[in-house]
């Protein structure tokens, strides 16, 4: 590809005591895209982001943002990036407006310019009414918004968002997603860490899945999904007695392994839409018809994306997919 890389890491390592939190991560993030870093708690996502944002010194390997080394050229990196951390990166004792004016001044704006910019941002983020309230009284969604507003006070070239929607209600989450999309439309590169496959799917064009400090899969959304199977079918039967029969029927109809859940009437199967001519939904539809034909009553059916657990199971089964 000819596009310039916004972020590039090679063999990045961070060790805390005898815990290798980040254990040799290679990333190449193209400019102007949302890059998702997906992984469970403790996978090393935050540590990796903190090294890229010059908050932590790598113990090994190197990282560059627009060609500038995060250790040797930290100041040059700082002038081009912003970070919105997992915990609000604003001063809770200060009001929303004071926080933004403070940052505006620190970024070199004159007092009137900083005030204007703060008012603009508060208005644009729907926070005008809360402008003069201390941030400690904000709801989770409002905090996240003031935090992102602070991050785009000077539009950054790279925006790090560390689990921006963890703990938010669905409406606030959608608002954060809208903000991220607007930022990327403008040309900013976003590196987003998340625990939610759904979120990475909504926003990111490329995704790296990390676990135990290592990248276990990397690629476009399509590549990643192909490696995992495109969906998971969950079924709840009316009669627990029919479960064994249902399992047999489904195994044949879906051509996949069908697992019995802890719940005695529930079954789960991964549908691999890529391996056959039909899509996952069509495949699942046929399986349902087949169950009906055999007289098995299904009370509840869902076809969804594989959960993060399932992604990990799949990825650790066949290591090194598309890496």
């Amino acid at each position, binding site marked *: 590809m000819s596009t310039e890389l916004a972020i590039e890491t090679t063999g990045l390592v961070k060790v805390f005591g005898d815990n290798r939190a980040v254990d040799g991560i290679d990333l190449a993030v193209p400019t102007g895209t949302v890059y998702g870093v997906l992984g469970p708690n403790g996978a090393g996502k935050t540590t990796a982001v903190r090294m890229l*944002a010059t908050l932590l010194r790598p113990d090994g390997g190197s990282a560059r943002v627009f060609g500038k080394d995060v250790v040797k050229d930290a100041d040059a990196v700082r002038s081009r990036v912003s970070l919105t951390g997992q915990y609000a990166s604003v001063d809770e004792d*200060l009001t929303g407006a004071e926080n933004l004016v403070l940052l505006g001044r620190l970024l070199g704006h004159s007092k009137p310019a900083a005030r204007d910019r703060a008012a603009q941002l508060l208005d644009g983020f729907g926070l005008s009414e809360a402008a003069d309230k201390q941030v400690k009284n904000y709801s989770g969604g409002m905090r996240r918004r003031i935090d992102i507003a602070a991050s785009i006070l000077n539009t950054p070239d790279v925006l790090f968002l560390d689990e921006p929607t963890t703990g938010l209600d669905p409406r606030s989450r959608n608002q954060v997603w809208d903000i991220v999309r607007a*930022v990327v439309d403008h040309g900013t590169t976003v590196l987003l860490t998340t625990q939610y496959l759904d979120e990475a799917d909504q926003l990111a064009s490329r995704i790296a899945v990390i676990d135990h400090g290592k990248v276990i899969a990397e690629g476009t959304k399509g590549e990643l999904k192909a490696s995992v199977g495109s969906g998971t079918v969950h079924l709840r039967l009316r009669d627990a007695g029919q479960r064994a029969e249902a399992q047999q029927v489904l195994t044949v109809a879906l051509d996949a392994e069908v697992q019995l859940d802890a719940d005695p009437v529930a079954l789960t199967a991964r549908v691999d839409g890529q391996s056959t001519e039909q899509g996952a939904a069509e495949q699942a539809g046929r399986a349902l018809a087949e169950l009906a034909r055999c007289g098995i009553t299904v009370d509840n059916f869902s076809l969804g994306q594989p959960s993060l657990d399932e992604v990990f199971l799949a990825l650790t089964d066949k290591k090194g997919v598309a890496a």
Partner: protein
Amino acid sequence: MSTATAKTELEGVELAAPDRERLAALLVGQGRPPRPSALSASLTFGWRAMLKIKHVPEQLFDVTAFPIMLVLMYTYLFGGALAGSTEEYIQFLLPGIMVMSVVMITMYTGIAVNTDIAKGVFDRFRTLPIWRPAPMVGYLLGDVLRYLLASFVMLAVGMAIGFRPDGGVLGVLAGIALLIVFSFAFSWIWTMFGLLLRSEKSVMGVSMMVIFPLTFLSNVFVDPKTMPGWLQAFVNNSPVTHLATAVRDLMEGAWPATEIAWTLGWAGVLLVVFGSATMRLYNRK
């Protein structure tokens, strides 16, 4: 409590969702101003400290009520026994107790730094392209104001119970100025501990361990002549003793050049040693 009501009020507000077009407008067409000077960045952080005092005025308790208590307590406790009368004793004690209280108050800096670091806002500051020591200098600028407030509160209480300095306004102001300069330098010990230690409690514990011997083992309360030789050796060379003597002499209208030189020398050493240790830790954290 007022905070509780504010919270429910805010939760009741139906906030407008951020509008996509307006968001897009926020991102375009703004130039990047040049980075602020070291002084401007430090002053901005000093302004932050002022805002915090405005929002959490309770934090002024330790620079108002606490010093008043110390002046009254020690004057009436020791006055009769040590100097024959409280009026006599306050002439000797006030400059010293002022030194002791302000030096003690400096330790809150470390606690403030430590609690701030636990919050995310520090990450924001550390990713800004600004002069690196600015956030720390900003804290201390805010603290200088607190030290001034404590000094004047104690001066007022002292005057009310009979302190009459021979040095007049100039002598008193010179004494306070020297005390503030020393305290600013001394505070870097606490910014270092604030960054070094893991919890607020441990910062508090270590601060007490340092501050109590340092302030009590000095000439603040009594003339060191009655102390055993080994203790005199410590007391006579302690920076707090040099400072207390210099402040006392200045307020009496004398010009203690040697003691001032010792005090400023100590201040310089503290600033260099603990200032650079603080910045090392700040960059590592």
